[in-house]
């Protein structure tokens, strides 16, 4: 009988540098989101400032 499910193992070298490159790519995605939002939705930067303002030390109980 042919096995319907198989267990597959993948082996790959993963280094701190390779993970750091993925983190850098994530930061680029944040910049790209800004490029898509900020020029077309003018109030968005005010909103994000307000949102992150909630985390400012003076606003944390």
């Amino acid at each position, binding site marked *: 009988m042919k096995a319907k499910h198989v267990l597959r193992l*993948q082996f790959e070298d*993963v280094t701190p540098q390779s993970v*750091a490159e993925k983190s850098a790519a994530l930061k680029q995605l*944040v910049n790209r989101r800004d490029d898509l939002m900020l020029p077309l939705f003018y*109030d968005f930067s005010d909103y994000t400032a307000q949102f992150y303002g909630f985390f400012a030390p003076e606003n944390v109980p």
Partner: protein
Amino acid sequence: MRSKSVYFSLGPTTSPVSDADPLDPLHRELGTLSTELSHLETYLGCAGGFLANQKEPRIGDILVVPLSFRARADTLSVQYSERLPGKTVMEQVRAFRSDLQEAEDARNTLTHTLYWCGPVGDTTPVASNHNEGKTCPQTAIRRRHTSIRS
């Protein structure tokens, strides 16, 4: 009948547990990666919430909070096309959406992976390696990934 707890032993130790693990640099980078993705997830939530209700973004935020990363990315993408129909920027949005998913998949794969310091197939526990003061060459860090495929 009481169930029996099972503990995994790392074998006999010859030095304190607080010794640096050779995988620590990798662990730090994995932490950074997770944190960066969380920031991005929050950013996506802000954008999706804002587009849902620009007059009262707080209402949009309430709707977005329980959503997964994928759902936030979809929400942003769909609302973008609703708000700006026919804009040439939609191609950028589609590419952005695709790259978001790729980033999350990469994070998930890296997070749900067993890391192994040393040649693959070497069953020597990592702890005994580092307790003997051996270093772990970058190239010897391996990822073991299991998956069930039908």
